[in-house]
């Protein structure tokens, strides 16, 4: 049984082909990096896997279950969650509340228990606060738990995104450019966190531009170009491949 299996996925927006006949699979508890120049289809493949855009044709299976037609929240329940390139934090909420909202724990999530079982609801909220606090500790943001998300640094916002995606309880995490725009120290911090997630049995699919980072974190690399999967292999092989290098960095011609 394969873990995540994407087969023959096509997606067009009007006349533009975002994904052409994409097929690949990833193995559990590995880190797979998605690389390629701008417009290669990296984010599109994320959107298709998480159900944010429907595939025109093709099939997506997760742990043997066909999820192609499933809703976005059913996919999260199945164990697939994502972050966004543009973060999408709840800016005016505290870090702690940002994480609480994303917790997979569905307890007391309705108006009737809020009104008619207030003590139970507060007990559930305390439980959620503890769980969220542990996640903030894990990403190194516990000391900022009460701050508004709008008031923390960009690097910290990126860490908060990781805490939120962990809160869903998903095992396959799709991280869209977790290291972009980070200064050296924050970048090392993020790489360490990614390694730690792998050690926690998480499977990671990561859009990553920086080839040095890819070498440090990836077990496998998927190279996309103009909506097609051009190559798949070990990071060293892909990065050493001159033809792919020309596509990625431009041939200079």
């Amino acid at each position, binding site marked *: 049984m394969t873990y995540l299996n994407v087969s023959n996925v096509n997606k067009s927006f009007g006349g533009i082909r975002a994904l052409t006949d994409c097929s690949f699979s990833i193995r559990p508890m590995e880190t797979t990096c998605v690389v390629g120049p701008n417009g290669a289809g990296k984010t599109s493949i994320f959107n298709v896997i*998480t159900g*944010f855009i429907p595939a025109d044709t093709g099939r997506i299976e997760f742990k043997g279950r066909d999820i192609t037609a499933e809703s*976005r*929240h059913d*996919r*999260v*329940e199945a164990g697939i*969650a*994502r972050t*966004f390139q543009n973060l*999408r*934090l*709840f*800016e*005016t*909420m505290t870090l702690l*509340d940002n994480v*609480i*909202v*994303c917790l*997979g724990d569905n*307890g*007391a*999530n*309705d*108006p009737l*228990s*809020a*009104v008619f079982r*207030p003590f139970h*609801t*507060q007990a*559930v*909220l305390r439980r*959620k606060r503890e769980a969220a606090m542990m996640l903030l500790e894990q990403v190194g943001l516990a000391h900022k738990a009460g701050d508004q998300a709008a008031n923390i640094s960009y690097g910290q916002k990126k860490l908060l995104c990781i805490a*939120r*995606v962990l*809160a*869903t309880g*998903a095992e396959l995490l799709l991280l869209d450019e977790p290291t972009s725009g980070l200064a050296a120290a924050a970048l090392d911090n993020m790489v360490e966190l990614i390694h730690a997630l792998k050690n926690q049995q998480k499977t990671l699919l990561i859009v990553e531009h920086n080839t040095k980072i890819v070498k440090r974190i990836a077990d496998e690399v998927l190279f996309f170009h103009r909506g097609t999967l051009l190559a798949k292999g070990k990071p060293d092989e892909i990065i050493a491949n001159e033809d792919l290098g020309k596509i990625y960095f431009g041939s200079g011609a």
Partner: protein
Amino acid sequence: MNYFFSFLVLAEIFSIVAFSTNLLMGVVGIFSVAQAAIMGIGAYTSGILVMMGVPFPLAVLAAIAVCAGVNLISSLPSLRLAGDYFIITSFGTQLVATAVFINWSSLTGGASGLSGIPVATMFGYSFVTASQFAVLSTLALCLVALSFWLILRSPYGMMLNAIRLDEIAVVASGRKVLQTKIGVSAVSGAYAGIGGALYAAYISFIDPVSFDIHVSVLVVTMVVVGGARTLAGSIIGPFLLLAIPQALTLIDIPSTLVGPIRQLIYGLLLIAFMLWRPQGIAGKSL
């Protein structure tokens, strides 16, 4: 003194309707200009039932149920439509409701309305005078405010706020946004239903004009001026805006001008607050 109590009762009833609008518009960001229509449905439901001999508490419960259902249905397009488009949809809901109030005359009394709605009677007590009714309306307002407060500080309330801030992010975290919005629409409708039922019982006369688009806009203005998303704002707004017509009676102006001047002040207040203090009087900075 009676004069004061009748102001108090009306302001409290409108506070309850303001909570309905605040929950939907302020907290979740579903911008509706149809809350007076929902209030009207509550008023007609309760008024008609009481006239048929149904006990007042049961009529209120029926108004709550009907309004929760109607508000849920009228909010359904917001599950697909982004904010601005939904305003147009809710405008449609308001017009349809007014048309029904006017034209279903066998039930609603048509344009001339329903008069002689019996006074509210509960557990052997009759709430006849304004001061007696104030007990009832204060109690109702306290219960609504308490439930609003409990909702906002629950995990569910956090999710409502999160939906307003970034619905996509809430969806991505696996939350059932649809179910959440359905729940909040029902609660908001229930509030408006309570407000409507109390209004019918207190005024003892209801007509379509009492629940037309101007009243919906007035309630939106109350929430904006008072402060969206805040408990205090939902009470400050109605008390302040309903005090304006009272204050106008103290100034020596021709009676024909009182109505237009009142509307003018409401309009200017709405514009001024949107421009210079969008968070309202009680609001935290946005």
